[in-house]
């Protein structure tokens, strides 16, 4: 069996007395679109933030293409936490899309997209700019390169954020509730971009409350509750035949809210 792109084993994370994640295992193979659903506070966001090294993990391990993230084994065989400086190359291999977009507000849209490839990867400026333009066109914002983020709608900002993450040619794209901060009529344009990425077999982990998206786009759905993976399977299995009571309750609440 080939090594999965992402392998999470026994992942644990606490915030003070609160257990955010407990013993989470997750494998993501190349080209898979894993959608993580669950109630608020179930640890979904913490999971992707731990994978992206934005939070220090307390237990277990995360591997990207078989390489430990944020940890290394030194010459004496002692496991050591890597300083932030040393993990930058690992972060570059993962693209992160935040709930609150987090575009660099003092930079133009175009520069938001090419800044990191130029500074982090050392790409030549001309090349990076041309690619930034291509990526902006791909998310339907080719004409907004000179605008500042504040001049764009939330949906447009989030599409720029996706282009910015893609500019690093990541192995894995992580989405942390990408549509939760958007007005309802703007959600569709962002989901459309994500759907097209999925169709191109981009490896993705998506945390979202958009169950319709999970049903249509996911290759696998993971249901989390209270910091644990409770159930996972194909969308048909998870939505059509929920085995645990917690998932049944969760889905009922959602369909009640939708109707």
């Amino acid at each position, binding site marked *: 069996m080939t090594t999965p792109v992402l392998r999470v084993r026994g992942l644990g994370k606490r915030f003070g007395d609160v257990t955010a994640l407990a013993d989470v295992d997750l494998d993501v193979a190349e080209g898979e679109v894993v959608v993580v659903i669950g109630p608020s506070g179930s640890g979904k966001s913490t999971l992707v933030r731990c994978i992206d090294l934005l939070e220090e993990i307390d237990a277990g391990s995360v591997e990207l293409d078989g390489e430990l993230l944020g940890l290394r084994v030194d010459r004496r065989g002692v496991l050591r936490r890597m300083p932030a400086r040393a993990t930058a190359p690992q972060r570059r291999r993962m693209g992160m899309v935040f709930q609150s977009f987090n575009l660099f*507000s*003092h930079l133009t849209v175009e520069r938001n997209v090419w800044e990191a490839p130029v*500074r982090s990867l050392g790409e030549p400026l001309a090349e990076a700019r041309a690619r930034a333009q291509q990526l902006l066109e791909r998310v339907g914002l080719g004409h907004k390169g000179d605008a500042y983020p504040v001049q764009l709608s939330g949906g447009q900002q989030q599409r720029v954020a996706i282009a910015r993450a893609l500019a690093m040619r990541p192995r894995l794209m992580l989405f942390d509730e990408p549509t939760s901060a958007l007005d309802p009529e703007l959600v569709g344009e962002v989901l459309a971009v994500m759907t097209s990425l999925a169709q191109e077999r981009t490896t993705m982990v998506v945390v979202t409350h958009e169950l319709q998206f999970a049903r249509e786009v996911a290759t696998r759905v993971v249901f989390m509750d209270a910091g644990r993976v409770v159930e996972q399977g194909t969308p048909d299995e998870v939505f059509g035949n929920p085995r645990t009571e917690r998932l049944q309750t969760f889905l009922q609440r959602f369909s009640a809210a939708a109707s």
Partner: protein
Amino acid sequence: MDPAPTTQAPDARDSRPERRPWLWVAWVVLALLAAQVIAFVLRSDRLELPVVGEYLFAAPVLDGLVTTISLTAIATVLGALVCLARLSSLAPLRYLAAAWIAVFRSVPPLVQLLFWFNLAYLVPVLSIGIPFGPSVGEWSANDVITPWTAAVIGLSLYNSPYSAEIIRSGLSAVPRGQLEAASSLGLPARDTFFRIRLPQATRIILPPMGSQVISLLKGTSLVSVIAMTDLLGAAREVYTRTFEVVPLLIVAIVWYIVLVAVLTAGQSWLERRFSRGY
């Protein structure tokens, strides 16, 4: 039901501004005051405007001006360095900077100038070397502490805590999400600081920093008590010789006003420059 068309309803376009009779009174009072000031300036023979004109661009005054500007610039830069230490990831450096800020913010600038000028009494010999071990070089404190070095040290130390706190508050006001995005993109720490964090902080730092630099600029006039010829010192040197006290103070005043005007203009230009995207 549609509202019936009507001709009686008032139209805002027909309205006139409210009457303000006191506004005219205020204008008249202001005009009278201005006329009085102008008349005083034109008629007073003690103001000696020709003398002001004569010394405005005189060599000693311009030298003093350069001293004033250099002192301001050096003390501002040193303040920024203390701030970097205050934010360093090395705990000892951070504590040193915090202690530095606590001490030097408490001592009045005039007291500091006098203290550093008289350092030779406390420490006759300055030496660099291994602590409690052999020394590499030694200098007589009397030679090292000139009015110039005492002024630089005193003003820099006095100013650095203020600048450091202003810069620190600006840096910590940059939203966490901006830094998370930079970190997630694997931007090197240096680029994250200089291209993401500092430019965004500058927008917040500029207004208080502008006031701080202006007050430092004016504070440099204190150095004339340790025989330093800054702008005020130069004016004093001339008037102790010629007794044209008021005209030379006016020369100094004009230059202070010009410098502050230039700083203010620079500040608003920078503020516009760094408010792009907000």
